[in-house]
């Protein structure tokens, strides 16, 4: 049972896809202008990760080795379409602010990476845990980056503003994303080295 738990928790911190493996940089930098955006993106990706991991693990003996990457992409794209339409239907505001980044989950290397590295080699339950762990780790990282950028960039916590006017605008723009991400990764490295 302990090993099952470690499959779930390794994505959260030790092998956090964004902060340790440095995967999925495009959404991590692009959509994290606010904490809510970060959570929305993270949960959408988590859904895709869990579902595609489960299905790929289920079909791993059927998929021929030579065409496995295209097959994975088709499976992932299916779930991305589902979540894309769901968000558009029920959370139009979120769909508006995430924009193109939802369809782009298809090419997110975390999803394909887990499919290739984990789901195609392990059983269904482990793959589910792995997808869930990785997805939540991704969500956590995006929330963290989004939280810092929102706090510094627009002076707000979870969309509640507590200052007048603008914050330090650069944190809402692209350079701020790189700076915040760099420092968070540095802190994570520092903590891990201390252990």
């Amino acid at each position, binding site marked *: 049972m302990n090993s099952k738990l470690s499959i779930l928790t390794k994505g959260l911190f030790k092998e956090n896809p964004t902060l340790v493996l440095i995967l999925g940089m495009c959404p991590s930098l692009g959509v994290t202008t606010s904490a809510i955006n970060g959570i929305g993106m993270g949960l959408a990706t988590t859904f895709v990760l869990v579902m595609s991991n489960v299905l790929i693990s289920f079909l791993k003996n059927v998929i021929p080795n030579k065409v496995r990457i295209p097959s994975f992409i088709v499976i992932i794209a299916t779930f991305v379409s589902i979540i894309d339409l769901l968000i558009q239907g029920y959370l139009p505001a979120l769909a508006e602010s995430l924009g193109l980044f939802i369809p782009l989950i298809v090419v997110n290397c975390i999803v394909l990476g887990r499919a290739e590295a984990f789901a195609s080699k392990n059983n269904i339950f482990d793959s589910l845990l792995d997808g869930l762990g990785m997805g939540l780790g991704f969500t956590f990282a995006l929330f963290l980056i989004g939280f810092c950028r929102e706090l510094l960039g627009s002076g707000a916590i979870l969309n509640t503003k507590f200052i007048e006017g603008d914050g330090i*605008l650069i944190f809402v723009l692209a350079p701020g994303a790189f700076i915040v991400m760099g420092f968070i990764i540095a802190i994570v490295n520092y903590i891990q080295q201390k252990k």
Partner: protein
Amino acid sequence: MNEKLLQVSGSPHIHSGESVKKIMWSVVLALLPAFLVSIFYFGLPVIILTFVSIASCIVFEYLIQKYMLKGETTIWDGSAVITGMLLAFNLPANLPLWMVVVGALIAIGVGKMAFGGLGKNLFNPALVARVFLLISFPVQMTSWPIPKPIFKLGADVVSGPTPLGILKEGVKSGQSVESIMHNSDMPGYVDMLLGQMGGSFGEISAIALLIGAIFLLIRKVITWHIPVSFLLTVFLFSGIFYLVDPSYYANPFFHLLTGGVMLGALFMATDMVTSPTSASGMLIFGLGCGVITIIIRLFGAYPEGVSFAILIMNALVPLINKGFKPRIFGKIKQ
């Protein structure tokens, strides 16, 4: 003392007597004329702002060095003082002081210490902070006080545009350069040379900056390569456009004397840490800075591009160093 004299070490054995400390303090000395001119035109705020900037740079350097990097205290080598001074020189004189402190934190924390301290930084720390502030607080960073000699009484802080700002706005609204030049806000060339124009307070007086730079050249702190190639490129490149269409592009003297070109070319681009090591590399570096500056000025969204130009070329320095290695002493060209 005798023991020290007898120590045998690898070459070189002759020491010029230079040290980081000496170099840094001569740069501070070289910046003084420009500092005095800006006090003359903008008065007390200049002194306060410069003091706050230098003090917060030193404090941040001390704190980061002591508690995060856990190294020796480096505040006495003067590099933080220069960063603080150059940062202040790049700001409008009426900027809120807390923004200056944020700028100092970015300059020292992100621009310098995050890379490992003096000698390891990729970008000029003061410019990193300036660009950071410019993007973060566009309103405050572009409202320039009107220069007014200290003995003339009158309204305290009136903000006005910089010559480059006037030019950009004018060209955008379709006026010809000649009519923009006759705009009442536009300073004459003598004023530009002496420093009576709007702008960041350290960049206004070309003469004072040149005096400082000549001092540095005589002290051999900087070499002529970067300033000359930077300024010459600005002059020639804007000159080409001027010759093509004088009613749309301003003449090259205007580009040379306004904005941060002088300060940038003489003091920012020549920063030893962030510029190439070989003479030919320095020439290329200056050329790139000049070309990018003029391209941003003529075609970009910002009226001024010196700080962006220098930062972009800073990023290319490792590449330039690789391509233009200094000739190894005694080696014959094959």
